[in-house]
């Protein structure tokens, strides 16, 4: 029975491999997606061949030991999971327009670790967890395990070829066209940074009465999540927080994620550090931001349990927010209010006090479309483009103006307008990426 299931699984894997190989070929040899998809595809093919060889050995008369068969079946299931990664990597190109500039933001922070963030090899998008955005740093370990299971010693080089640091970022397929929600990739990129730069040391005395293992787990996992949040604001400014507000679950802490209230509080502090929040400091066009943050903090409320390990961890980190912010913002290269203002104040031609990137979107133009004189030929910061998009989307007055010129009737109006906003943002990111590549090639 197990052997039949295994044979069937291998057959399906063979069909999928063939179809995916053709799909990757169609992407063309130089497509970024093709490179990462082909890399994974080759690994899956090797694993498939190894599993088939073992299955053949069993078929020729070796004793059918259940444990061995079950082990192989589990490996075959893993293979199908990885094929799913290849599948989505091979068909969707949109996120790369965002990843290339994001990678450029991260690179100065970790020059020694930039290999792990190269879009061509390492960033894979998939819809494995349909409703989840996540960062998988254990990806190489699992792949190694799968290959070790499938191959014998002679094929050790194949296992060695799996990179040590393999960052896989995932997001739900349904959100692939929502560029604004891609700001959450800032958080996932933050995970890669935590992996490479670690975090500040924190000394803590564990209280009596709680299960110590749970507390240790909370301290380590929550710290990683909070640092990733701080890095997200470091990289993308308000966009990072606004995307989290949009998607944050009910204010419930879990073993691996702190409650939203704690996360928003930290990001609020980061935004203050970046100069985005503060009555006197909010620049034109972002004046609505403090109100949005206030509402989010209020919404997430202070609903944490008054006691218990989660409350203890919450209070512990609440007292440590400054340390976390200091650790992250101690690095140079943060996206700050100055970036936002300098990208927006182009030649002083902003009408009605509106940030000029926002103004461009209102005229159905990619926000990055700067004149050469405006920013001395450089592109605006990726985060400025995203924040301009968020401003249009969040600011009711601006959004209504954006929709009104399309003269569509509801409900198509909102949907169509949002689709067009996404197109403009995506085009802007594509232009940023192309400009950078072009400038590099011209040197």
């Amino acid at each position: 029975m197990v052997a039949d299931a295994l044979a069937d699984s291998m057959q399906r894997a063979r069909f999928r491999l063939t179809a995916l190989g053709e799909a990757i070929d169609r992407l063309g040899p130089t497509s970024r997606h093709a490179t990462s998809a082909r890399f994974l595809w080759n690994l899956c093919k090797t694993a498939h061949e190894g599993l088939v060889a073992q299955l053949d050995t069993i078929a020729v008369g070796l004793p059918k030991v259940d444990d061995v068969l079950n082990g192989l079946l589990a490996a075959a299931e893993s293979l199908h999971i990885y094929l799913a990664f290849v599948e989505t990597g091979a068909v969707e190109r949109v996120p790369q327009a965002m990843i290339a500039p994001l990678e450029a933001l991260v690179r100065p922070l970790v020059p020694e670790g930039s290999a792990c963030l190269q879009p061509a090899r390492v960033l894979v998008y998939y819809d494995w967890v349909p409703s989840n955005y996540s960062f998988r740093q254990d990806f190489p370990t699992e792949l190694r395990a799968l290959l070790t299971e499938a191959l014998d010693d002679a094929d050790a080089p194949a296992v060695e070829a799996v990179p040590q640091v393999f960052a896989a970022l995932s997001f739900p397929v349904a959100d692939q066209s929502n560029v604004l929600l891609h700001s959450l990739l800032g958080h996932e990129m933050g995970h890669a940074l935590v992996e490479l730069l670690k975090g500040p040391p924190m000394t803590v005395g564990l209280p009596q009465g709680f299960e110590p293992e749970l507390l240790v787990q909370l301290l380590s996992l929550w710290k990683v999540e909070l640092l990733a949040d701080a890095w997200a604001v470091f990289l993308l400014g308000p966009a990072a927080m606004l995307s989290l507000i949009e998607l944050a679950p009910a204010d419930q802490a879990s073993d691996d994620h702190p409650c939203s209230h704690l996360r928003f509080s930290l990001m609020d502090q980061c935004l203050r550090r970046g100069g985005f929040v503060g009555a006197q400091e909010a620049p034109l066009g972002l004046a609505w931001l403090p109100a949005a943050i206030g509402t989010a903090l209020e919404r997430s409320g202070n609903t944490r349990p008054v006691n218990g390990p989660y409350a203890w961890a919450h209070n512990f980190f609440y007292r440590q927010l400054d340390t976390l912010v200091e650790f992250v913002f101690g690095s140079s290269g943060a996206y700050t209010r100055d970036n936002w203002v300098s990208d927006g104040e182009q030649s002083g031609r902003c009408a009605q006090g509106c940030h000029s990137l926002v103004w461009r979107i209102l005229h159905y133009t990619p926000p990055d479309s700067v004149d050469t004189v405006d920013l001395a030929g450089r592109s605006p910061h990726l985060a400025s483009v995203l924040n301009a998009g968020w401003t249009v989307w969040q600011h009711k007055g601006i959004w209504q103006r954006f929709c009104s010129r399309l003269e569509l009737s509801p409900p198509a109006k909102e949907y169509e307008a949002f689709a067009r906003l996404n197109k403009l943002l995506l085009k802007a990111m594509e232009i940023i990426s192309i400009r950078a590549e072009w400038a590099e090639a011209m040197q």
Partner: protein
Amino acid sequence: MILTADDIRERMKLPFPDKLVITPLLDETRQLKRGTAAVDLRLGQEIMCAQPAVLCSLNPLCRESQDLRGYLSKTYVAVGGEFVLHPREFALAATLEYIRLPLALAGHVVGRSRWARVGLIIAMATFVHPGYAGCLTLELQNLGDVPMELSPGFTVAQLILEEVKPPAEHDPGQLTCATGPVFLELIKDNERRMFSKLRDRRKTLTGDKG
């Protein structure tokens, strides 16, 4: 009046809504050459190639033919990559540049002569209406005898701009914000119904059971 390169440059400096947007101009000096009356446009990254095998005929009246999208398969070519257009092959592409025309300007997109001389047709439907916002769709066909390797970023087309007097009225239909080649409905819904009825009547009259 056709705008010169200098006029175009000036229009690009105006504030909205009179501003002309052409972005990105990766090499402004070459794309907007002094003394010319056009702006050079580059080939974009999305290409839609015809797959004749998936369609027995193209019937614009058939609702199912909306799945003409299957007839044109989309390929994404990265900067630095290439795409081969075989002899007689047809493909849709778009300009790399995003265009936003003010209401006082209209344009014609035409192929560059150097490409025409090796048999590459760039654009067939060439008029761009005032107020248009989006990348321009190009219709490529290789009329030559050898396959042609094309890369995103090649300057294959040019946009000639003309003044519209008095300025046109705002048409929301022009705000497509297309960022790649766009395949449009061949016949609008109301006209489709009318043509279908005409065809049915004709069939009844001629006794064609179809």
